[in-house]
């Protein structure tokens, strides 16, 4: 539990600005979901037997969790590591770099859990689900997705020379995932080679879990998808730990 003071420090800072943070986190995905869902939904009609808005809800949930975890571990963690030297200060105490990164990882996942919960609350409020009991399974999906993208984010953070570097990650990794992983349409709409590429992306697996749960089915190959998310997340965390150690403690 040595990581807890690190998590707690981030929580206390976040709490000072919690209201605008929550609103900011919620507004963007909500606008996408409602704007595209109601607007495009008019022209698209039903997708797989459900209104487009209902289809879009699970994708928005996963995408919102991904974004929240990514922004936290890129911009905020980078500020703490590189600009404010918060990590250096902590490393002079009994805590180790492993404690720091575990705290950061779990903190970013906690923050993205909150983003996911906010979208889930909207899904519940607007009745964009088929079976309430199944939507409860979205909670572990949100947690796994948050851990996945927090781990990957910490890896990117560990090699970043400055804030501008993060544009590469967004342009080359995050944006393709948003457009190819099935947020806006079923991934089988893609040509085979592109679908195969999309299948390797972690967000695809988060949506493969979230969408059936929102639409009232038990996801097929749930363990596989969960395993892929966990694998990406822990590999990212391990690489991030290794590279940050080389960066700060050599």
């Amino acid at each position, binding site marked *: 539990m040595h990581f807890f003071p690190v998590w707690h420090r981030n929580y206390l800072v976040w709490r000072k600005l919690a209201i605008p943070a929550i609103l900011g986190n919620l507004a963007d995905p909500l606008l996408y979901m409602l704007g595209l869902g109601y607007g495009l939904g008019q022209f698209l009609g039903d997708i797989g037997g459900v209104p487009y808005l209902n289809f879009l809800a699970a994708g928005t949930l996963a995408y919102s969790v991904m974004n929240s975890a990514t922004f936290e571990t890129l911009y905020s963690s980078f500020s703490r590591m590189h600009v404010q030297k*918060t990590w250096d200060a902590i490393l002079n105490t009994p805590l180790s770099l492993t404690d720091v990164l575990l705290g950061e990882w779990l903190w970013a996942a906690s923050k993205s859990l909150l983003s996911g919960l906010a979208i889930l609350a909207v899904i519940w409020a607007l009745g964009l689900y088929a079976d309430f009991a199944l939507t409860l399974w979205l909670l572990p999906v949100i947690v796994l997705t948050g851990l996945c993208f927090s781990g990957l984010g910490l890896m990117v953070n560990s090699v970043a020379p400055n804030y501008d570097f993060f544009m590469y990650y967004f342009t080359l990794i995050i944006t393709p995932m948003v457009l190819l992983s099935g947020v806006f349409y079923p991934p089988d709409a893609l040509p085979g080679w592109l679908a195969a590429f999309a299948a390797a992306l972690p967000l695809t697996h988060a949506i493969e879990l979230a969408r059936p749960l929102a639409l009232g089915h038990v996801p097929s190959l749930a363990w596989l998808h969960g395993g892929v998310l966990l694998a990406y997340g822990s590999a990212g965390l391990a690489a991030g730990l290794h590279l940050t150690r080389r960066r700060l403690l050599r």
Partner: protein
Amino acid sequence: MTAPLVLTNLTKRYGATAVVDGVSLSIRAGQCHGLLGPNGAGKTTTLRLALGLIAADAGDIRLLGEPMPAGARRARARVGVVPQTDSLDPDFTVRENLLAYGRYFGLKPAEVEARVPDLLDFAGLAGKADATVPSLSGGMKRRLTLARALINDPDLVVLDEPTTGLDPQARHLVWQGLRRLTARGKTLLLTTHFMDEAERLCDVISIIDRGRIIAEGSPRALIAEHIEPQVVEIFGDTLADWRDCALDYCQRCERAGESLFCYTGDPRPVIAELDRQAGLRYLHRPANLEDVFLKLTGRDLRD
């Protein structure tokens, strides 16, 4: 009481360069020990090795009896660190900075809260508990960093260039604080490249250059051992013509740009001669640590 820090034959290489090259050092409890050296001499690397933040290529480190870095968690629980760069939490107030730092040591919030008024008093920050960090001056930030380093009531306080970048008033306040710490029986290890700071604060100084300790002792002993007691600094238009006669009047001379440093036991002959030389000006002073430092590490720039 065992020595708070013992380094034995410590070596750390980066590529082909040995940044720390066989350093052995033992710090006595209750003393203020200074590591004095030019930029890039290996001071900060030595501190980071001692704290177990980086691993040595060779040698042995005992920090408060613990082998480092294996016993880092236990040892660092009893050490306070004042780093070179500001690492205060800008999102927290002064009080919150101390509370958060206490949590990293596993201290209970109530315990830390009770200690806050004393620490703020010590740092000359009483009444600033609820101030935000960006509103503090540079000197206040450094004093808060010092207070933060005392949150765990450490046996050893490690300070990396504690007064770099501070104005004279702020430096004196920090010095006062450090003297009060030694008066309370704390052991201090500090790096500095300010000679006056080392001379004022330190019981023992290790002069470090190119990763090696090249001299060690009390400031007085170092001056007595390495340098003549009186210095006459000479400058002026006719210096070039006169320079060759200098050794007729003193024991040792050093050129530095447009001035000449004459080192001697008895300054009267050289001063009498200089008073006859209209084209020369001079400054007479007792020898200090800076003279020792420059003699031992040379006058070349280090960057």
